């Protein structure tokens, strides 16, 4: 596998003794401080959110527990990040909301990944008329105001999380399809594909067992770069009141609530906004770093 990947890159062919493609990539990634920083932040935030999901009492409070006599309190020893107007602990809500935001990010990216890879791989592998029709469809879809459709779907069919994964994923697969198609076109003429043909393997098997694994680099990179976009879209919907419903929280909901009262209780805006910006930063840095490390050419046309 390692040899075939190095062919798809712009690097000159490696000698047998040199480290494998993935070792090389890992080495380059470790040298990129910003990318490592991003990786660490994403892992820590993910772990914290997971922990707060497993142990809802992690911060001493659950995300929905109200303390109406306390009301909105600035950060203190008891509540590290303060409380909101209903006396709910902001740290607990932030972690819980982070869990939701990251989950939406992961699943929606997963949906877009599945659609995009399958569509792009088929289009690129088939070539000819099929390819041009399939890509024409993508071009046309690109030109549509999709966010409007997501809004409509969310308004009409209730605000369930599953629906949100599907709606967002269905919007974000286009770029992935284009990238995968381009890469498949480049790979499908190579000898190992010819060999697979000669062995009499089915086309589906050639595409998904022999070609797609060679595209892991670009796929990983663009999945990493899709996640921040998805998280932004989720919070955009939450901001419009279409995302998760109270008493649940996501970062979009928290930012919306904070923005409404920022003059009186600025911490309610600052901490969620910072958490979200930090996550998006980290994912973007990680994505850029991975792109450099895996030497994926800028195929985002």
């Amino acid at each position, binding site marked *: 596998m390692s040899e075939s990947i190095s062919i798809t890159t712009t690097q000159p062919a490696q000698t047998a003794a040199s480290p494998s493609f993935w070792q090389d990539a890992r080495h380059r990634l470790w040298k990129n401080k910003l990318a490592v920083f991003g990786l660490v932040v994403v892992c820590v935030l993910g772990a914290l959110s997971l922990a707060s999901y497993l142990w809802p009492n992690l911060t001493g409070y659950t995300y929905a527990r109200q303390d109406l006599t306390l009301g909105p309190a600035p950060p203190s020893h008891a509540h590290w990040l303060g409380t909101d107007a209903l006396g709910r602990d902001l740290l607990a809500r932030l972690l819980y909301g982070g869990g939701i935001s990251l989950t939406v990010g992961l699943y929606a990216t997963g949906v877009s990944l599945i659609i995009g890879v399958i569509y792009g791989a088929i289009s690129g592998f088939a070539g000819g008329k099929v390819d041009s029709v399939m890509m024409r469809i993508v071009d*046309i879809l*690109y*030109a*549509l*105001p999709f*966010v*409007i*459709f997501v*809004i*409509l*779907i969310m*308004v*009409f*069919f209730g605000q369930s999380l599953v629906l949100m994964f599907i709606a967002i994923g269905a919007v974000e697969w286009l770029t992935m399809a284009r990238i995968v198609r381009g890469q498949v076109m480049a790979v499908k003429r190579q000898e190992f594909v010819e060999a697979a043909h000669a062995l009499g393997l089915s086309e589906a098997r050639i595409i998904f067992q022999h070609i797609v694994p060679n595209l892991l680099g670009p796929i990983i990179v663009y999945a990493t770069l899709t996640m*921040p976009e998805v998280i*932004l879209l989720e*919070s*955009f919907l939450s*901001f*419009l009141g279409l995302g998760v419903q109270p008493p649940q929280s996501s970062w*979009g909901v928290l*930012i*919306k609530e*904070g*923005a409404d009262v*920022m*003059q009186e209780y*600025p911490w309610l*805006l600052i901490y969620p*906004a910072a958490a*979200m*910006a930090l996550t*998006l*930063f980290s994912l*973007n*840095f990680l994505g850029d770093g991975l792109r450099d490390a895996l030497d994926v050419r*800028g195929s985002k*046309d």
Partner: protein
Amino acid sequence: MIRFIIRRLLETVPVLFIIATATFFMMHAAPGGPFSSEKQAPPEVQARINAFYGLDKPLFQQYLRQMKHLLTGDLGPSFKYAGRTVNEIIGDSFPVSAELGCEGLFVALLFGLVAGMVAALKQNTFWDHLPMSLAMVGLCVPTFVLGPLLVLVFAIHLDWFNAAGWFFPRDRILPALTLGAVYAAYIARLCRGGFLEVLHQDYIRTARAKGASDARILFKHSLRGGILPVVSYLGPTIAGVLTGSFVVETIFGIPGFGRFFVIAAFNRDYFMVMGSVLFYAVLVIFLNLAADIVLVWLNPRLRFEE
């Protein structure tokens, strides 16, 4: 080129048809109707209202009627704003959104292009790192964080602007900045990449050797090639600026079209939703076509397909 344009226009017909059909059936599949949220009127009154708007007919007949209306360009009456047609509402509120969008786009292009060009020209110096770091910040701070923060600092603490409203020219500044920031960041990155590619070409080295100034190299020799990536990004950008204005309009209390759209969807204002969706779709498709034409005009190596 004429053939290209005609072909693209013909292509939009089935696309718009599919959009209209999908929107129609999605709307009617959703629970609730335009008059179900209001205080319950007596059944006979409700029946009259439904008959007046043709809502008592079978779904398919309603569909045909809707399509016929759309063909004539009549988007129908609004259910919620009694006595007003959708055409009037769009006519009143869209100019506001369009103005906001143009100003946001202007902000995006101004800051994005300047930052990107400076960064490319001074690659790997402070003047490269500073604008690119700012662009990264711009990418990661969502509109609905930036907007309230700008209001907090410039309207509430410094008192330079009004916190909300759409009355005076200076009311435009904060919304335009909020709307344009993300796109400025994207454009800066694309523009830097585009110019870097051009600046490494041999003919630029020749121009330098002949003693051309930085400004001449930028504007005379590399502008055309350098902004290509930005132009191809403009189509999607415009779509984004238009939909992004939903949030900005909410934050700054601007009487634009985006708010009508979201409210209309909540109200099941069928004609209003259909009208808005098609209006946006047509707008976005035409702007994309315009961006493609400009792209070919800038880069003669690209030819119009077929």
